[in-house]
């Protein structure tokens, strides 16, 4: 194929029609707290890994709800399970457990 010197960027638009409800319910069954995140960003603000790589539990939860679970799993790779996020979460979510469950449920490897 001729190289024209430009390519197409895949759409970054969120399409909720692609949301996998069964998979999400599977996660919610072991981790009901995934529903109650209000996206305040406290977890991201204190994240030790976040200083060096793009790691954000808030964003990962969003990605899952926005039908982009691969991004979530990828993002949580850098998590060191230090647990600072669980200390600051105003809704008392067991964030470490949630991170493990997200990875377990959505990991394709």
């Amino acid at each position, binding site marked *: 194929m001729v190289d024209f010197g430009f390519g197409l960027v895949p759409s*970054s*638009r*969120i*399409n*909720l*029609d692609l*949301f996998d*409800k069964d998979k999400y319910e599977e996660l*919610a069954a072991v981790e*009901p707290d995934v*529903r*109650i995140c*209000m*996206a305040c960003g406290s977890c991201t603000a204190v994240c030790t890994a976040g200083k060096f790589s793009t790691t954000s539990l*808030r*964003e990962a939860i*969003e*990605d899952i*709800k*926005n039908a982009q679970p691969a991004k979530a799993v990828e993002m949580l790779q850098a998590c060191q399970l230090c647990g600072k996020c669980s200390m600051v979460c105003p*809704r008392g979510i067991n964030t470490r457990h949630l991170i493990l469950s997200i990875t377990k449920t959505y990991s394709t490897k």
Partner: protein
Amino acid sequence: MKNNILIIGGGPAGLEASAQLQRMGYNVILIEKAPKLGGHLAKWDRLFPDSVPADEVLGGLLRSAEGVKCFTDTDVRAINRLDKSYNVRLTNGITVLSDAVLVASGFDLFDAVKKEEYGYGIYDQVMTNADLEAYFKTGSDKRIENPGRIGFAHCVGSRDEKSGCRSCSKVCCATAVKQAIEIKQAFPKAEVYCFYMDLRLFGRHYEDIYLKAQKEYGVRFIRGRLAEVSENYDGTLQVKAEDTVAGKPLKVTLDLLVLMSGMRPSASGKAIGDLLEMTVEEDGYFAVRSGIAAGQRSPIPGIFLAGAATGPKTLPETLADARAAAMEIDRYLTEIFPDAKNYKQLVRERW
């Protein structure tokens, strides 16, 4: 204590103030332009935050206002200020000489047709919060047939300067959360999305129903104002918004879209205001003597205000406002009004 008091508006504010003033021994005349008392409350099914039946609350208000002279299907035709009383001619031919007038003219819901980009009145599957309440009340609406994906658009006709509605309508966030829960109860398999800019759940128990909507009902809250709605060939709706938390544009297909129409100053209230030459603020609601210290007194001596005539209010706020107005009227009629000789001076000092 047998002064005549005219109360304009037979919604919750008018009913509650009537009941209170009647208990105090005044001669209350309540007028309502509609054929039935109750205002918007009569059209609502359940009330936030605890989903109390609206009928129950209205029944209580009507019972406590029993014995009040009440004219339905009646409006004000003309009103004249006499020395210190008001001579009010009603559309039913009756003339009332009233020592105090309480304007409890309430609100109108924003006409969602004006937000053309949301397609109310254009696309079949778009309805308003009032339509949904009517559905809950009657159990039938041709738009609702086991919907699988339902969206709620917050801030329709509020926080929208282009529509002439800058202010927050205050009650719609809690209403949306309540209705989202109720529609999930009716259709447990449905996916429910709320599109909001800020969630203003300021009242007692309001945060609880927000948490409940997330936790028990799996309602998805998406921060981003609904931008555009279009209809697919099969009659479903495609809606677009930005998920501002993710910072990405978003689209989703819906079977039903509910627009949270906000509170607007009522048209009939405006007509009364014109007759009385009452001051209206930039937001369209009546001005009060002092927003903090005298929220139930208008700038005109003898004219009082209660309820949503002075801005969006929740039902308990409206009832409290009506009780406060009753106290203020009583104070006026006992302290200022009877002193004919010094009336003008007293009004200057104490109004």
